[in-house]
């Protein structure tokens, strides 16, 4: 495959052109598809509102990523970014040079950051940026210690996830949008989705916690020199091999990173040549932007998403993190967004269970009251499809804002 020989610029350029072309065509097609479906079937409104919101947020997040103050790797720098207006000062008690953390897969790596994946920040502030000082790039420098920055990150995501919960997953996360687009792609071929058994599905839910635990433990081990003063693993010193390439262990396997890079390269806001030149093809060697492991996992997840609805969301560690905070009793009472079920109205027709993208069974099985679970992405498909009036509802601060309606009336 590719090697890092600087001389082969031409090859990179051709590849970059192909990449750019493919992604552009893909995006245009996806857009057309969304419009077509919307025209054809207007009755399912909340679903399309959701697609709209997802697209808007994805665009916003990507713009934030694109118009960074650093311009890296684009030369010359693009200039003032929205983030400079938003968070340029020290509004958040401390400077947040890496952007505000949000609990969605909005990747740090590609470019400037207005908002950034919280998971990257958590890993990076444990290791390698435990101490104040310079970051990877020459114009990022931290004035706070890792502990302080971590505190900010955690408090932001805890507040966000308590208040909004996994609403982020269903409505904002760009990778969630990618999952939904795969579902729509499958629908074009009139193939039915597959179902995981309920047992596997609940098993996957536990797996998420294991993944996040492993990631955190790994980060602590790798950052042991910064934190405890002794190296548990060699090469974790500043500038060392592990430091340079495996600083954020989860990101090396994350399916969102390559997707982000591909899309941004495609739309021309990242220099393809630079991306490719900093990427190695070898499985065990990491690139700055992509690893082959990244790509393999993206491929697997894409296939998974074609077969199972919202496949990634069932094992997403970031989703688990939000779910965790959203679920614990002390936080549960503050959470603003909840799914509520009125038991007597329910005839247990099973529609809510069948239409649920991450295959949640609690909405169907639980007796009534609050039926939100840590796996629920609050996409509201169940509320939309429930044929009994007022049976399911989305409660915002205890008040129902969106209730299940008799959708037969709208079909007329």
């Amino acid at each position, binding site marked *: 495959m590719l090697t890092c020989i600087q001389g082969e610029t031409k090859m990179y350029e051709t590849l970059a052109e192909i990449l750019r072309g493919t992604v552009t065509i893909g995006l245009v097609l996806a857009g057309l598809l969304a419009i077509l479906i919307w025209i054809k079937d207007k009755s399912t409104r909340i679903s399309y509102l959701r697609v709209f919101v997802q697209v808007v947020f994805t665009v916003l997040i990507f713009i934030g990523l694109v118009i960074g103050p650093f311009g890296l790797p684009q030369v010359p720098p693009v200039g003032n970014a929205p983030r400079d207006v938003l968070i340029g000062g020290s509004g958040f008690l401390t400077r947040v040079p890496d952007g505000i953390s949000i609990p969605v897969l909005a990747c740090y790596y590609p470019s400037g950051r207005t908002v950034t994946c919280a998971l990257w920040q958590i890993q990076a502030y444990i290791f390698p940026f435990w101490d104040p000082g310079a970051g990877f790039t020459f114009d990022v420098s931290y004035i706070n210690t890792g502990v302080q920055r971590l505190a900010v990150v955690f408090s932001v995501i805890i507040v966000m996830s308590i208040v909004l919960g996994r609403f982020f997953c269903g409505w904002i996360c760009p990778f969630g949008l990618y999952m939904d687009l795969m579902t729509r792609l499958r629908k074009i071929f009139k193939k*039915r989705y597959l179902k995981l058994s309920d047992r596997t599905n609940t098993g996957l839910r536990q797996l998420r916690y294991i993944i996040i635990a492993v990631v955190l433990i790994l980060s602590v081990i790798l950052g042991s020199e910064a934190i405890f003063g002794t190296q548990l693993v060699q090469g974790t010193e500043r500038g060392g091999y592990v430091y340079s390439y495996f600083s954020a262990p989860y990101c090396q396997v994350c399916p969102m990173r390559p997707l982000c890079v591909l899309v941004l390269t495609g739309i021309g806001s990242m220099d393809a040549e630079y991306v490719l030149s900093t990427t190695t093809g070898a499985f065990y060697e990491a690139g700055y932007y992509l690893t082959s492991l990244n790509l393999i996992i993206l491929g697997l997840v894409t296939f998974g998403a074609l077969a199972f609805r919202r496949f990634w969301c069932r094992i997403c560690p970031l989703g688990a993190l939000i779910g965790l905070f959203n679920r614990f009793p002390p936080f549960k009472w503050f959470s603003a967004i909840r799914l509520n079920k009125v038991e007597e109205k*329910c*005839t*247990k027709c099973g529609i809510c269970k069948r239409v649920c993208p991450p295959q949640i069974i609690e909405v169907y099985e639980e007796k009534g009251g609050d039926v939100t679970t840590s796996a629920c992405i609050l996409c509201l498909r169940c509320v939309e499809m429930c044929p009994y009036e007022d049976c399911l509802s989305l409660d915002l601060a205890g008040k129902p804002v969106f209730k299940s309606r008799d959708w*037969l009336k709208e079909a007329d």
Partner: protein
Amino acid sequence: MTKKSIREKMYVPEIPQKEIEKLRNSIKLSSKKAIADHIQRMKKTSANRPKTMKYFDEIADLFGQREKELRAAKEEGKKVIGYLCTFAPIELILAADAIPVRVSSGWYDASKLGDRIVPVEVCPIIRSTIGAKMIDLSPYMELSDAIISPLTCDGMTKLSEILSDYKQIWTMSFPRVKDTPSSLSSWTEEVKNMKERIEEFTGNKITGKKLRSAIELMQRATGAFRRLQDLRKGPPVIMGRDAMLVTQTSTWDDIKRWTEKTEALCDELEKKVREKSWACPQDTSRILITGTPMIWPDNWKLPALIEEASPQGVIVADELCSGDRLLNDPVGVDEWTMDDMLTAISERYLMASTCPCFTSEDGNEDRINWLLTKIKDFKINGVIYYVVRGCMLYAMEYTRVKRALESMDIPIYYLDTEYTREDVGQLKTRVEAFLEMLSARIDF
């Protein structure tokens, strides 16, 4: 005729053709009279009965217009597929360009003929259906090319065996527990098999497009039905018997036309609501009937008693598989693929049902919940739990329902009867005492 009729009869005795004809003619005549009489009484009960009810009065004549239409359709090569129980997936029949009709019998006199084959302890609906078939009474049964029989209660199970002496019967094995994954998958399998059977039998392939339009057709019918239901939630704008008749005609009428006519009825009723022209005084006790199915034309005595009693009652809702349960639940399709549509159909019939043939640890809670919701939504004053003798499942579930309703302080009365006209006097005493009790509760 089908191959089945050649096979040696296992249950049914040979009856001379002459006797068959004699019995048929006499029962048919009395049934025609009963139909006319019931409609006459329904007209009398409500001074300002909706004009659009005229259509339903006509279609309610089992030996009238619809029979002719079915004959004409059959001559054009269409198939008629009958069904005995509401669990039969009607959408599949419609998608194969066949005509679905329900063939369960409500004839009192026919049940006496059924006694020749099965003991009197057996549910009279079963006996009557057998009896009606013995003398070729029911036009819909006679016109059916095949009959789908979901094996729900014990009566239905053996009934399909007995009817096999005459007709092509397609049984559908039915799970008695609905919440396990295996029961859903086995029932879905049955539905898929039924699709293949219907396709083979009619020669029409059920394509995704056809099935989708059949589902949407039934969804529109459900929409119209629910509109009528919503109107019954307010002050009584239509008598219960009229609404029950409307709902029940959907089991043999052309479903598209039925939907249109029901929408027209709803339009008229909405006008009546605006004019505040009620079918009976607003303080009339609001009754919900639950229990064994009540099948037109003969088994209409209880609704008639309730609405003609003094003090009067008005049936605003029911929980019968011959009534509100027929069209209440829509097929909810997530993705319009063939597989998903079939799953959605099988789920709609299995999971949404509140039939007492299901059993569960929490005591068929779905039925209780649905009853409680109805009681709240329709502002019910009292519930009449109606059971025909021999209907074990409904009879046995009474205590469970009674307890649940007592906790809500809703009076419930258990009424058991037979396929007979002779106990009307006794029933009247009880119904009137119950209504008196309810009106006293309202008065004080």
